[in-house]
C-alpha cells in the first residue's frame, strides 16, 4: 500500500484554512451543520429496517447493530476529522493514514469500525435462496481448507473462542513467492485486516501470548535475532536476488478481505443472550451473501495492465 508518511501528528489537527481562524465562526446549530460522512445505504434497506435479517437479527437488533451503531461511529468520525486534512477522505483512507499514529488512535478506531461494520453488513443477505460460491472460490477453499465444511468449522471455532469483541475475516493472501491462499484472520476490537494498516491489525490477544517465549527481548529484537539478516552469493536460496525479490513492491496488496463476522456483543446479545454466541455464528453462516464474496475473490492479476 502506498502510505503517506506523516512527519508530525500536529499537522493533521491544523484547521484546513487560515481564514477560518481569522474570521469569527458563526454559531450554527448542530442540526443544520453540514455532515460530511453519513451512514451508507444497504441493499434492501427498507426491508432490513422493518424486519431485520430473518433468521439472524430481529428488527430492534438490526437497529442497534447498524442504524444506531454505524450512525454513532460515523458521527464520531465526523467530529474527529472535521476541519482537518482528513475530513474529505473515505473511512478506508482515514484508517490507513492514522494506523501508525498513536495520537490518532481514536480516529483510527472510528474509521476502522465504520469500515468493518459496513463490510460485515454488506456480506449478509436477507434472501433465503442464497447463490452458492463460484467455482474459483470453491476450488480455492478446497485447496486451503480441504472442504467447505472444514472452513465453516474452523471459522466458527475461531470466532467462538475469541474472548471479547472483534471481527473474524476470510482473507486472500497473495504473497510474492508462495501460492496465493485463503486464510482466516481474527482482529480484536477495531483491528484492520488491510495490509496498509498492519500496525493496527490487532490479531492477537496478549493474554494468550507467553512473554517468556521471547526470552525477555522486545519483539523487534527477537525478530532480528531469529530471521536471517545477511545474504550469501548471487544466485540461490539465500542470495541478494532472493532477498530483493522478497521485498514488497510499492503498491503491493498482499491481503484482500473477502468476508467477515462481527463478534461485538451488542450485535448478538439482544437476540441470543450471553450464552448464544455459537447460535448467532451458525445463523450468520447461513446468511452469507456469496455473490459479494465471489466478486471480491475475483480480483486477479492479468497481463493486460499498462498495455503489456
Amino acid at each position, binding site marked *: 500500500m502506498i502510505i503517506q508518511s506523516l512527519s508530525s501528528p500536529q499537522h493533521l489537527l491544523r484547521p484546513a484554512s487560515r481564514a477560518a481562524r481569522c474570521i469569527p465562526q458563526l454559531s450554527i446549530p448542530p442540526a443544520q451543520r453540514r455532515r460530511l460522512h453519513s451512514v451508507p445505504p444497504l441493499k434492501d434497506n427498507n426491508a432490513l429496517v422493518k424486519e431485520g435479517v430473518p433468521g439472524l437479527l430481529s428488527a430492534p437488533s438490526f437497529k442497534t447493530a447498524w442504524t444506531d451503531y454505524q450512525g454513532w461511529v460515523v458521527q464520531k468520525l465526523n467530529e474527529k476529522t472535521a476541519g482537518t486534512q482528513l475530513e474529505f*477522505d473515505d473511512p478506508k*483512507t482515514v484508517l490507513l493514514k492514522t494506523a501508525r499514529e498513536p495520537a490518532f488512535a481514536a480516529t483510527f478506531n472510528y*474509521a476502522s469500525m465504520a469500515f468493518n461494520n*459496513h463490510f460485515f453488513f454488506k456480506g449478509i443477505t436477507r434472501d433465503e435462496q442464497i447463490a452458492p460460491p463460484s467455482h474459483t472460490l470453491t476450488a480455492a477453499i478446497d485447496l486451503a481448507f480441504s472442504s467447505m465444511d472444514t472452513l465453516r468449522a474452523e471459522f466458527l471455532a475461531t470466532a467462538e473462542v475469541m474472548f471479547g469483541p472483534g471481527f473474524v475475516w476470510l482473507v486472500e493472501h497473495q504473497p510474492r513467492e508462495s501460492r496465493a491462499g485463503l486464510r482466516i484472520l481474527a482482529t480484536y476490537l477495531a483491528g484492520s485486516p488491510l495490509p496498509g494498516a498492519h500496525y493496527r491489525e490487532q490479531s492477537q490477544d496478549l493474554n494468550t501470548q507467553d512473554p517468556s517465549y521471547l526470552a525477555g527481548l522486545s519483539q523487534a529484537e527477537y525478530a532480528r535475532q531469529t530471521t536471517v539478516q545477511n545474504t550469501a552469493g548471487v544466485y540461490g536460496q539465500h542470495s541478494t536476488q532472493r532477498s530483493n525479490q522478497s521485498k514488497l513492491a510499492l*503498491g*503491493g496488496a498482499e491481503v484482500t478481505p473477502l468476508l467477515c463476522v462481527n463478534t461485538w456483543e451488542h450485535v448478538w446479545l439482544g437476540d441470543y443472550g450471553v450464552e448464544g454466541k455459537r447460535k448467532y455464528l451458525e445463523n450468520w453462516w447461513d446468511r452469507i451473501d456469496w455473490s459479494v464474496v465471489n466478486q471480491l475473490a475475483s480480483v486477479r*492479476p492479468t497481463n493486460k495492465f499498462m498495455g503489456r
Partner: protein
Amino acid sequence: QRFLSSEIDSIEASLQNSLKETHSIEAYINSASSVPVPPIDPDTHATTETSSVSDSVARYYQIYKEQEQLIGKIGSTVSPHYQPHTLLTNPPSPSDVTLELLLASGAHQGHHTSLWNPANARYIHGIRHGIHVISLDVTATHLRRAAKVVTEVTRRGGLVLFVGTRPGQDRCVVKAAQLAKGCHLFERWIPGSITNGQQILGRCRTKVVNEKDEEVPGFEEQLYERAVLKPDLVVCLNPLENYVLLHECGLNNIPTIGIIDTDANPNWVTYPIPANDDSLRCAQVIAGVLGRAGEQGQKLRLQAAEKGIITYTPAQDLKLPDQKEAGDESQDILEPNDIELLEKLLAEVKVEEANDGKGREGEEEQSDKQTDEN
C-alpha cells in the same frame, strides 16, 4: 600508435568473446535453475534486473486499483465536496453553470472601490467592506452567451485560442484548448504574433485536413506560399495583462471573450464575462465551461461531417494535388461524383451563409489548421 590501436582492438575482441560466452551460458543456466539469470545489456555490460521488479509493481498496482473499486468506499457515504483537481480533469459544462457554483468559486468578488473602472458599473451588485460585488446572475448570463459563441465558432470549424498568462492558469487553459481542439497560450504573448504573424509564426507547420479532420497529403507546396493562420476567436482569462493581444485582435477583426473584473475595461473584449480574474478557481470554472462548449461545437461539426454536411465555407484557392499536376487551374476544388450530393451541399452552404451572422470569409473547404507554437 599502431601498437595502441591493436591493443585496444584485442581488448575489444576479448570483451566481445566473453560477452558471447555469457550469452550462450545464460540460456543453459535459465533452463537449469529456478532463479532466472538476468540478461546482460550489450551496451553497458550490466545486468538488467529492474524488469522483474517493475513487472510485479504493475501487477500489484493493478490488483490494488481493482480492490479500491470494490472496497474503497466502504464505511460511510462522503457528501459531495469541492475537489480542486476535478475542475481540470472533468470541467463543468455550460449546463452546469449555477449561481451556487459561481459563488463558491469566488466569481462575485471584485476589487476595492478605489480601483473601479466605471465602465463596468452595470455588472456590479453592490459594495461590501469597500469591495465591489459582481452580480452573479449577470455573470451567468454573460458566461452562457460566451459559451454559445464558442460552440458556434467551433461548429463552423473555427480556431479558438485560449489565453491565460497568470501563474496556475496553464493547466486549465491547456485542458480547454484540448477539449475545443484549439490552441493555448500560458506564457507571455509575443507582440505581433497576429499583425506580424509571418515573421513570428511563419515557420510553424500547417496542414490541410478534410471535413472529418483527417490530414490530406500533397499540399506542401501550396502551404509554403500560404499566409499564416490567425485565430477565429480568442478567450482571455486575464485581459488586464494582455492588452497587446486584445488590441491586435481588434485590428484584425477577431472576436474576443474575456473575464472582466471591476478594475478592467469591458470595451477591450467583444464578449465580456464579468467575474473575478484573481481567483484561480473562478478562472478554472470559466475556462472549463468554455472548453466544454468548444467540445460540443466540435462534436456537432464532426457529426454533420459524418452525414456529408460541411458546416463552413470551403476555400477557393487550394487546388487538389493531382489536378494541379494536370495543369487544370480553372477547375473547382471539390467535384463530388454524386450530383444530388452536390446540390444538397450547395443548399446547405447557402443555408449556412444565410444564417451566418458573424460568418467568416476565406475559410478553407479543406480547412488548414496551424499548430501554434507560440
